[in-house]
């Protein structure tokens, strides 16, 4: 029998929004794969910055500008250390995962030639499909897709078959946002490097569910969003190997990314600023640093282990309900469960769960090709985080049973 440990209750107390009531019912927030909630320390940091430190960075000689610059760059260093990057120059602040992928598609894409190939998988989020389609049209390169098994795992034999000397980039999600599958990225990176291909890891989901070490992974790019790791929206990170980032042309032009501008010739700034045109999301970067500081302050190993137990419990109890079909049944899975109940439309179940205070996601989760693969309009996705409790899973299951009764 699983119970919610005290340290999870302690973590939970750090997140003010979790005390909210929705339709007069206690909020059960199971939409963590879409965005995580923010601990008080992050919220306070944002308020404190605007109340006492607000200034533009990198240029000002005045005190506030110096303080803000220092805080922003400290956040970069904290993130660098958290994900195991060798240098802070390899940490590019972006708007989020989507922005990071678009940056790579544009700047790394500029180095590609007709006939080159990019490999993605059938379980990618639209943001790891569409930028490559745009690039493929522009540069006449081929986009190839690694198919998946019914259980939501990659067909690795097909990956081996599709990978060739023509493959210049493999862009793949670490963890599927729809199925929860954890992909064998270590093998993928090793095999890709053997044929000279670079690898981009979409870490949007993995960043909140376990430690990531880009150096030991040896990936070439790693992208994630701040808001999925208890930080604010509108800030994200692109990690790239220094040598690669040096070779790539800038993404956008503007202030901050230049060393010297004349009408004859502009000299670009060095890394990471070469990729950070314009006034950045200063407080976003600083508050993301605080979010990382928060994770570092808790016993995250225990919390991540607990998340897995919570998933096992939820799946096991869900499957006791008649008609439940789970999509994504890999043994290597993170804490989300995607399912349907008989022929009930996910939108109907989602609506009735909402009225009972349960926040889940319904629909195609920005993975329409995956929905086509399973021939379904969408799923209901319950995704957990380190502040969710066993009692919440029980509330969710009860609400689901009631919704099913009403809809049957």
């Amino acid at each position, binding site marked *: 029998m699983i119970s919610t440990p005290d340290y999870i209750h302690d973590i939970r107390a750090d997140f003010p929004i979790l005390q909210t009531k929705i339709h007069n019912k206690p909020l059960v927030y199971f939409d963590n794969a879409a965005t995580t909630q923010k601990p008080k320390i992050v919220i306070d940091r944002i308020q404190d910055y605007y109340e006492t430190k607000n200034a533009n960075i990198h240029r000002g000689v005045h005190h506030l500008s110096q303080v803000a610059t220092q805080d922003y760059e400290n956040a970069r260093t904290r993130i660098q250390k958290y994900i195991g990057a060798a240098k802070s120059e390899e940490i590019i602040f972006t708007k989020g995962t989507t922005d990071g992928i678009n940056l790579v598609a544009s700047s790394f894409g500029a180095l590609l030639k007709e006939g080159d190939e990019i490999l993605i998988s059938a379980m990618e989020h639209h943001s790891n499909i569409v930028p490559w389609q745009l690039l493929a049209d522009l540069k006449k390169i081929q986009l190839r897709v690694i198919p998946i098994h019914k259980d939501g795992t990659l067909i690795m034999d097909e990956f081996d078959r599709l990978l060739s000397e023509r493959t210049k980039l493999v862009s793949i999600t670490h963890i599927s946002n729809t199925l929860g599958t954890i992909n064998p990225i270590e093998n993928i990176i090793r095999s890709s490097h053997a044929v000279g291909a670079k690898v981009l890891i979409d870490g949007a989901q993995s960043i909140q569910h376990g430690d990531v070490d880009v150096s030991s992974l040896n990936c070439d790019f790693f992208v994630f969003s701040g808001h999925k790791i208890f930080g604010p929206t509108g800030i994200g990170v692109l990690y790239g190997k220094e040598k690669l980032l040096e070779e790539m042309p800038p993404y956008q032009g503007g202030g901050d990314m230049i060393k010297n501008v004349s009408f004859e010739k502009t000299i670009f700034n060095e890394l990471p600023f070469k990729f950070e045109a314009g006034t950045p999301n200063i407080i976003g970067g600083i508050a993301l640093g605080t979010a990382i500081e928060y994770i570092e302050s808790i016993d995250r190993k225990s919390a991540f282990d607990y998340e897995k137990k919570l998933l096992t419990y939820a799946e096991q109890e869900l499957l006791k309900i008649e008609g439940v079909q789970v999509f994504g049944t890999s043994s290597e899975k993170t804490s989300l469960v995607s399912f349907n109940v008989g022929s009930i439309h996910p*939108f109907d179940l989602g609506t009735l769960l909402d009225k009972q205070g349960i926040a889940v996601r319904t*629909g195609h989760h920005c993975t329409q090709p995956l929905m086509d693969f399973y021939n379904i*309009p969408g799923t209901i996705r319950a995704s957990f985080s380190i502040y969710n409790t066993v009692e919440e899973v029980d509330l969710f299951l009860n609400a689901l049973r009631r919704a099913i009764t009403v809809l049957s």
Partner: protein
Amino acid sequence: MNTFKEKQAAIIADFDVFDDWMDKYELIIELGKEIEGIIPAKRNDQQLIEGCQSRVWLDSSFSDSIMHFSADSDAIITKGIIALLIKVFNGEKPETIIKEELFFIKEIGLQEHLSPTRANGLLGMVKRMKMDALKHV
């Protein structure tokens, strides 16, 4: 024949008896099951209003100076709200459909279903009902 306003007032009264949201939705689901809709074999792409979450099919015609609508959805709650909208709009003159205020949705607390973020196809359906009515003014 009730007026456009009276039809809406009657629906509001039907929903007023329920305090619990789940009861309101039970009624919506019942209504969704009752209406005929458009059987899948008769649906076509012209009728389709694509929502991100659910899909809606709408068919409209005009005779004897009034509009007739039939509609369907793959989601039963969406279909139930369609039933309510059709009850109000059916048999009305095009001018009424275009000009008169549609207030019952908000009154019974279902406005979220007609918000652009809900993406269930209903907002698009109401817009198209009005556009179809406009062709006959």
